[in-house]
Structures are given as structure tokens and as C-alpha cells.
């Protein structure tokens, strides 16, 4: 059970300027308590990698509104006008990545591949500045792996070792991100004894997870 860590202590591990892979898709499956604590501890100059920046008061959107974010690597900011505003004013540096490419780049970082060869983006502005590779008469973009200092994971269940499960569409980028960071911090709705999650049901094996956020008292 050594992995259980109080929320504040976990977030204290994250320095200003850190790069963060943050799970979630429009805030569904995001680690909400960790995000709130990032705001409370006012971590600054963050690089945030996530599918989207949700809405202004929601998930990753909270970090944007609080101006804690220096750079975003994401596929979609259409529902967060504040992110768009900060991008246009230059407060936030923005790298827009096709969603499937973002998923594969994070996966490649996590599984030790040198890059991703994808047909997506060929002939569009996404191709600019990138190497292309001809294979079997077809053109593919070489997209580079993504890794980060921390992965902040939102899970449904964790067991005492840190094995994780996810629920429905809250799974999204979480299992990929849990492979691609130096330090992995997971927040789970429930923490259950060893053996409660059968081996076949585990999605993220415990050996990938460094810290599980301890529950606050919530009985009664």
C-alpha cells in the first residue's frame, strides 16, 4: 500500500514548468481532484498534453482560466474560447495534433517506439516541417513520440498496488498516458483490496503507477 499518497503531497511533487499528460476527453475521465489541487498550489508554466482543454470552468479548462499553462499539445480547443483567446494573444503556445496521431504519439512514447508513421495529415498544414516516408508507394508522416514528466490519470478503480480500471468513455487517453511519463499519479473513484480487480479486467498494470491519491474520509 506504499503507493497511497495524500493529494497535497502528490501535487507537491510537481514543479513549476513541468510537462503533464492529463487524461480525459472533455473533462470526462480527467483527474479532477489533482487538477483542483494544481490550481490551489498554483503550479505555473505548465506544459499540458491532453485531448482537449474542455470548457473554461471544467477539467483542464480550469488550469487555462487560472493562467497556469504555458504550452498546450492537444487536438481540439473548439469548446474553450479562453484557450483560443490565450493562443491568439500568445499567452499560450499551441501545438494542434490530429486526435488519432496524438494517441499514437503518446503510445509510442510509452512503448519505446521511435515515432509514428501515419497517413493522417499528409498534404495538409499538419505536414509542415515534418519528415515524410514513402512505404509501398504511399506517403506517411513521421510523427514523434510524446513523453512527459508526469501523467495525471483519472481511473474508476485502483487496487492497493495501483492496478487501474476505467469506466466507459472515461477511459480515453488515460491508459496511454500511464505508460508515457516519468512519474504516474492516479486518482481513482474507489480503492479496492488486491484481488478485487481480476487480472483480465486490469487495464493499467500497477507497475506503471507510482502514486495513487489516498481517499479522503467520506463515510457517514
Amino acid at each position, binding site marked *: 500500500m506504499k503507493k497511497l499518497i495524500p493529494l497535497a503531497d502528490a501535487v507537491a511533487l510537481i514543479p513549476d514548468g513541468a510537462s503533464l499528460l492529463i487524461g480525459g*476527453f*472533455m*473533462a*470526462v*475521465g480527467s483527474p479532477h481532484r489533482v487538477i483542483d489541487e494544481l490550481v490551489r498550489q498554483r503550479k505555473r508554466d505548465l506544459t499540458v498534453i491532453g*485531448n*482537449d482543454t*474542455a*470548457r473554461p470552468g471544467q477539467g483542464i479548462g480550469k488550469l487555462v482560466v487560472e493562467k497556469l499553462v504555458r504550452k498546450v499539445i*492537444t*487536438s*481540439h*480547443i*473548439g*469548446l474553450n474560447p479562453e484557450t*483560443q483567446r490565450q*493562443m*491568439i494573444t500568445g499567452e499560450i503556445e499551441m501545438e*494542434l495534433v*490530429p*486526435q*488519432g*496521431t*496524438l*494517441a*499514437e504519439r503518446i*503510445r509510442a512514447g510509452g512503448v519505446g517506439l521511435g515515432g509514428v508513421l*501515419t*497517413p*493522417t*495529415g*499528409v*498534404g*495538409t*498544414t*499538419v505536414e509542415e516541417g515534418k519528415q515524410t516516408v514513402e512505404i509501398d508507394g504511399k506517403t506517411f508522416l513521421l510523427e514523434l513520440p510524446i513523453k512527459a514528466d508526469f501523467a495525471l490519470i483519472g481511473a*474508476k478503480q485502483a487496487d492497493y498496488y495501483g492496478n487501474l480500471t*476505467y*469506466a*466507459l*468513455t*472515461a*477511459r*480515453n*487517453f*488515460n*491508459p*496511454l498516458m500511464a505508460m508515457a511519463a516519468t512519474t504516474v499519479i492516479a486518482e481513482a473513484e474507489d480503492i479496492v483490496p488486491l484481488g478485487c480487480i481480476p487480472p483480465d479486467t486490469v*487495464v493499467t498494470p500497477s507497475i506503471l503507477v507510482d502514486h495513487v491519491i489516498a481517499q479522503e474520509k467520506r463515510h457517514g
Partner: protein
Amino acid sequence: MDEKTLIAKRVALELADGDLVNLGIGLPTLVARYIPAGRHVFFQSENGIVGMSGPIAGAENPDLTDAGGNPISALPGAASFDSAMSFGLIRGGHLDITVLGGLQVDEEGRLANWMVPGKMVPGMGGAMDLVTGAKRVIVAMQHSAKGESKIVKRCTLPLTSVRRVSLVVTDMAVIEPTEKGLVLREVAPGVSVQDVLKATEAELIVPANVPEMALAA
């Protein structure tokens, strides 16, 4: 019938029994309402599920939404998965049809639908993967916006993909991009071929017979 309903009812006829289909946010979502009886279509939401269905009031689940973050439901036999798998289905050629909105389609059948430089930069989300990977790409959009044709000679907006889309369904017409150019396949009820030509910037190839659109019930 309003224009969006018309478009949705026409697109619905393209979906065959057993197809895996991804509907973009907005207009394309309406298509699900008009699937002909007896056809079982599997709907994917790219945030990680196959077998999604419309929301059930009172049964909303914060862990179950569409790609826009709105509540959905799921049918028996649904499957959920991570984003790499979701786009593996899309990029790997397992997705039969994607229905997407559009800003422009040009004479080469190329779609632009993800940004207006200097104005709107939502990001491409899953659109580039969907247009690149789906077996068939159907664009569902208004024929014109603010009096200007969205079927253009050459896209002035950044492309979503260089891949030629399969079919364009508007409130005025059904147009099939081919190697030879854009072929006018059908016209909407009450719309003449002349009306379509007048409202279209791009050159259209007009076959001898251009029937009226069939529509799902």
C-alpha cells in the same frame, strides 16, 4: 421539413445493415434518428465506444458521453476502449462510414472543415483521421453559407485531408466527387438542376437524368 432534417434523412439511406458509422457533432448527429427500420447500424463515438445510442433522461452517467461531452447511452453489445483503439478502428479501415460537417468541398472532392484562419481555430479533433481512414466519407452540410457556395472550385480554407470524399449531401443536392469531377447525382424536392448550378461555385458534371432525392421516413 427543415434543411437539416432533409439532409439527415438523405444521408440515413447510405447506412447499411451492420455498418460501423461515426457521426460528427452537430448536423451529422441527426442522421441516427432516421435509420430505416430493420437496419442495425453500429455507431462509434471516437472518445471510445461502439454501440452508443441517444441519452436516456434520468440515466445520464458522467462516464458516458459523446465526443462533445454530452450524455449518451449504450446498447446491449456495446464495447468501450481507449483512444488508440478508437482511432485504430478509424485509421485501420474498420470504419465503414463517417458523416462530417463541412466548410468547403472543392472540385477535387477535398474537404476543408477544421479551421478559418484568423477567425476560428477549434483544432482538427478527430476529423483528419476520420477523413483519411474511413471507407466512405460523407459530407453533410448546407449548400451555401451567407449567400456563398460551399462547393468551390478550390478550397481556400486549410484542408482536412487530400483524400477525395465519397459523397456530399446538402439541402439542395447530392453530389459525388469522382476522378473526372463533381457529379450532380440528385436534387432536393422542389429544387431544379438549374437552381443547383446557380448556387454552386464549382463546376458540376450533370448526367442526363438527375432524379429527386429519396429520403428516409
